[in-house]
């Protein structure tokens, strides 16, 4: 309701431009296999992810650049890096991947973040004394 004695101030806008928004998204993933003694090398894991992308999105999707930054062979956990535009594609390809060499497997995505620093802490592994 407008009152006659109160003057309306002209609306002001403030525009914030972030210059440091990350170009990449980082994902911490872990591969869970049916047969727990199978081990993969980093190259084999990347090959598996590329084949998953190719199955779902074709040649164009399989060619989308992403990097495996860290990979721990004993626990099968790693950190992936992908451009922001490719996050949905990569994540959905990981979700729908079901087989590795005729063995059931699944990718568990533990953390996703545009900043690498957030991947260092995880409240699930937090130990409260």
């Amino acid at each position, binding site marked *: 309701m407008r009152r006659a004695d109160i003057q309306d101030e002209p609306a002001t806008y403030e525009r914030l431009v972030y210059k440091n928004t990350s170009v990449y998204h980082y994902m911490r993933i872990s591969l*869970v296999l*049916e047969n727990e003694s199978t081990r993969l090398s980093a190259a084999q894991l990347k090959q598996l992810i590329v084949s998953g992308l190719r*199955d*779902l999105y074709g040649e164009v999707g399989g060619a989308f650049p992403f990097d495996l930054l860290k990979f721990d062979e004993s626990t099968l956990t790693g950190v992936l890096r992908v451009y922001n535009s490719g996050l*949905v594609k990569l*994540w*959905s390809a*990981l*979700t*729908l*991947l*079901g087989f590795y060499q005729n063995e*059931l*497997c*699944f990718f*568990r*995505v533990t953390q*996703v973040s545009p900043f690498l620093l957030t991947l260092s802490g995880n409240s*699930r592994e937090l130990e409260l004394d």
Partner: protein
Amino acid sequence: MAVFMDLNITYTTDKKRLRSVIETAAHLGYSTVAINYVVDLQQKKQEIGKPKCVLELFDTFPIVQGKSRPIKVLNRLTVVASDPSHFRPNAEYKAYDLVAVYPTTEKLFHAACMTFDVDIICVAVIEKQPFFFKRSPINGAIERGVFFEISYTPAIRDSTMRRYTIANAISLMETCKGKNVIVTSGAEKPLELRGPYDIANLGLLFGLSEGDGKAAISTNCRAVHLHGETRKTALGIVHSMKSEQPLTERQEKEDVPASKRAKIEMAQ
């Protein structure tokens, strides 16, 4: 925010496998799961048995990761039917917490959307949709509070099924605009389950918006659960509980889905 639920875990007689599926679901963060008993009424003389008591499976339910409460397990019945006369609500349906129908013909789909007393309508994912979705029955279902379900596990198993799942999901989204959709697994093994945020991401693939994708596994599932609960009560107001002493009817105001609210006002 509503908790994550997975409302479709296929029932197997192998107790150990069922137990490991539920444990994986609790570990991934789902607060509620529903064990699905599928009944195909197209074959003659199919009986709808009682669901197995949930307490038989576990002595103590596994704790949901991230919360301190144990996982909740419901029972759900899915009826595969092609003729509206097959579907008769009787006392056996009351033993299940949720009732779903899988229509195989257009006529049944229309009847299920407008008149049947169900909570969920399953959308075909393992075959090409035998009929087209029309806007009028879907809008009728949305107003009544019935939800459409898309299952994602066939997409993991086989690439042909993947195409069918995505094709049927996209055609559903075109007609329903992303409202009243839930996404569930149809997991038979623990390695076929996926985490809740992964499924919200898959919703983007199916044509849902980001908010709708997350709602498909949280708020919409909760609405289905409440819809199923109110089916046991009289129009959502009178709520009866089993207790040791006699005289058990209690008056309780419950969250009533919009379709039943209108009937209450008319009764007054």
